[in-house]
């Protein structure tokens, strides 16, 4: 065993750091990130285009599909550097979710058609899995796709669809057959958001933000060549995707940076109890980070992260949520004035530290992290079943 990174790894880290601090980086994005101001759609596009311009967009893809072919350790270092440079998170929907499904299960024509646009961020993807009646029990989904000639006719609704308002495409799990075993009738369909019959309605979350949506499908005609793989195999692809999505799900690098920020903010607060809570969180974070490294090492050895990655999801989101609580605690009563996720108009700011209002927004917003991506209760069910065998 050896805990240190290799010379090459460290050199790699330097290159990334220099790139992120270089003059091509979209500064308006960094400024907003530093102030905790919400990013616009264009900001997100600018950021992703920058990452693409550096050749880093396919950071977790193999080279044959235009990816970097980086090792797990390089990916780890890359994500760390992004966090240190206060970058937004690279959107997972195209790159980490649908992309790998397309290059693993799609046909050549689909690969040629969709993969380059994902890497160049010409298309914004969203994930159409959850439905009003199917959340944790995803396999019970009801959105129906019926093959008529060379088109599927899709009817039904999806919900909690993150950033569907910005999306050009949606990848959906749809029911193509009613089978005894509910998993077997599910298929994986790519749908252009501009297709007639699709309606997107905002769902406002408790922080006041518009991040999720309901998406309604009424007789939506989807060309049959937008089906991935085989009909009825959608569940298998979805499970594959979930395994991929785990990369970086613990959010360690971002938490680390935020924790440093909190330490700086509170250094002169003279509050022993708060310092103790911060230290406890930091210790939990160390344990989590090294757990992630162990998982990475296993992948590098050719292993597959199985149910262990549920640890990363559970503990990672718990830590993220506790961190937001500590910011709120540090801000004390000054969290009270709150005009929404965009903050205050520039000519109208209340008293108290500027981090107060973004802290509440984050606290409320991050309640989602233990709910989405397979709730933490579901993750524990997975560990109980798959690892403990109970």
């Amino acid at each position, binding site marked *: 065993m050896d805990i240190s990174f290799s010379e090459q790894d460290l050199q790699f880290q330097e290159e990334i750091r220099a790139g992120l601090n270089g003059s091509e980086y979209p500064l308006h994005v960094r400024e907003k990130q530093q102030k905790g101001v919400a990013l616009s759609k264009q900001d997100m596009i600018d950021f992703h285009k920058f990452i693409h311009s550096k050749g880093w967009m396919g950071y977790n893809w193999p080279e044959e599909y235009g990816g970097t072919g980086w090792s797990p350790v390089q990916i780890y270092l890359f994500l760390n550097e992004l966090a240190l440079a206060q970058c937004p998170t690279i959107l997972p929907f195209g790159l980490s979710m649908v992309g790998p499904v397309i290059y693993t299960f799609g046909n050549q024509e689909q690969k040629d058609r969709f993969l380059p646009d994902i890497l160049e961020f010409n298309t914004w993807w969203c994930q159409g899995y959850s439905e009003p009646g199917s959340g*944790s029990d995803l396999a019970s989904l009801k959105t129906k796709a019926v093959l008529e000639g060379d088109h599927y006719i899709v009817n039904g609704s999806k*919900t909690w669809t993150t950033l569907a308002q910005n999306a050009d495409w949606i990848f959906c799990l749809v029911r193509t057959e009613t089978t005894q075993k509910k998993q077997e009738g599910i298929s994986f369909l790519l749908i252009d958001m501009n297709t007639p019959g699709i309606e997107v309605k905002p769902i406002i979350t408790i922080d*006041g933000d518009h991040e999720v949506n309901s998406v309604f499908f009424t007789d939506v005609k989807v060309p049959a060549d937008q089906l991935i793989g085989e009909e009825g195999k959608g569940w298998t692809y979805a499970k594959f995707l979930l395994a991929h999505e785990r990369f970086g799900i613990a959010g360690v690098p971002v938490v680390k940076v935020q924790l440093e920020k909190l330490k700086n903010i509170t250094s002169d607060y003279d509050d022993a109890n708060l310092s103790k809570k911060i230290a406890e969180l930091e210790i939990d974070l160390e344990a989590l980070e090294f757990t992630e490294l162990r998982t990475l090492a296993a992948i590098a050895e050719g292993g597959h992260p199985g149910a262990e990655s549920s640890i990363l999801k559970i503990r990672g989101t718990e830590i993220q949520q506790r961190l937001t609580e500590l910011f709120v605690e540090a801000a004390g009563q000054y969290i009270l004035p709150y005009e929404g996720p965009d903050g205050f108009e520039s000519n109208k700011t209340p008293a108290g530290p500027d981090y107060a209002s973004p802290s509440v927004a984050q606290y409320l917003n991050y309640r989602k992290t233990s709910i989405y991506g397979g709730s933490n209760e579901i993750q524990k069910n997975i560990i109980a079943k798959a690892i403990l065998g109970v």
Partner: protein
Amino acid sequence: MNLNYSDEQNMLREQVLKFCETNYDFIDREKILDSDSGYNEENWKQFAELGWLAVPFKEDNGGFNFGPIELTVLFEEFGKALVVEPYLSSVVMSGTILEASNIPEKSEIIEKIISGEHQVSVAYAEPNVGYNFLDCNTTLSKDADGFSLNGSKSLVLNGGNANKFIVLATHDNAPALALVEADVEGLSIQSFKTLDGQTCGELTFENVSVSSESILALGDEAKLLFNKMLDVSILCISAEAVGAMTSSYMKTVQYTKEREQFSQPISNFQVLQHRMVDMFIETELTKSLMIKATLQLDSDDPEASKTISALKVQVGKAGRLVGQHAVQLHGGMGVSNEMSIGHYLKRFTAIDSMFGNTQHHINKYQS
């Protein structure tokens, strides 16, 4: 010892409950939140007609002379429906201070509060002093014709609507409480929405003149009065939190019985049952401390302030647990602004931050 509410107190509870049932469903409340003033004037008129605005005031000023027990009954019911009308600021906070003062205007102001004609807010917090409200930087200094106020006050509840303010300031290195009109020269007010859908204001005073007849209290008297106001206010928002916790766990139980996943109500899952039991237990424990504090305040027990700190700590802890579990058990619905459940979490968060948060009161309890 008798831990039962009287018939009269139960009637008051019934009355508030009924009012909230008819006037305060989620959609009614949303409309109020969207309005500029952040409260409903019709509701306020009804509060006056029902006599609620008179609850804590002495009879010779037109009040009912009710004590902390009745206030907690009101607030517990307010909490269940997440009532946003400025009862805390205008009746409890201002009322406690005015009632103990001797200024000439006293009965006239109290009458106007009781009739709903006027609202009064206490300006106690400041940008830089945290929870040490009495160490404030706003100054009240003597000048030729009386006094003059300078400085700024923050987080003034209902600050955008109040007709008058009771301002905590420093005079001769000691606390002072002074009454000023909202439209007095030299006072500027900026109003903000709060995280839980109420409003608060930032007040800036520039050489605002205050006549000596508007000085409510000075020195130790001001300090005692202010601390008493804090205790009563904490008691009221704690009762409100108990009501909000009760609604939160009951709504969660209801929701999990109706929501089906894996072909069964999710209330079948034992892990969720235990969470709801925890929510219930915390609510009951909070209620116990709330009642203890109420009775101690009612009998001027010297231990009351310490129990109030214990209560505030319990409210912070339990509010966080109940609010977070309630959201979690609702899944995505829990984080949707269209469901009431997330609004309870916001109110718990606001309540914890006010008048000293959990940590502040742990320290106070220990000292």
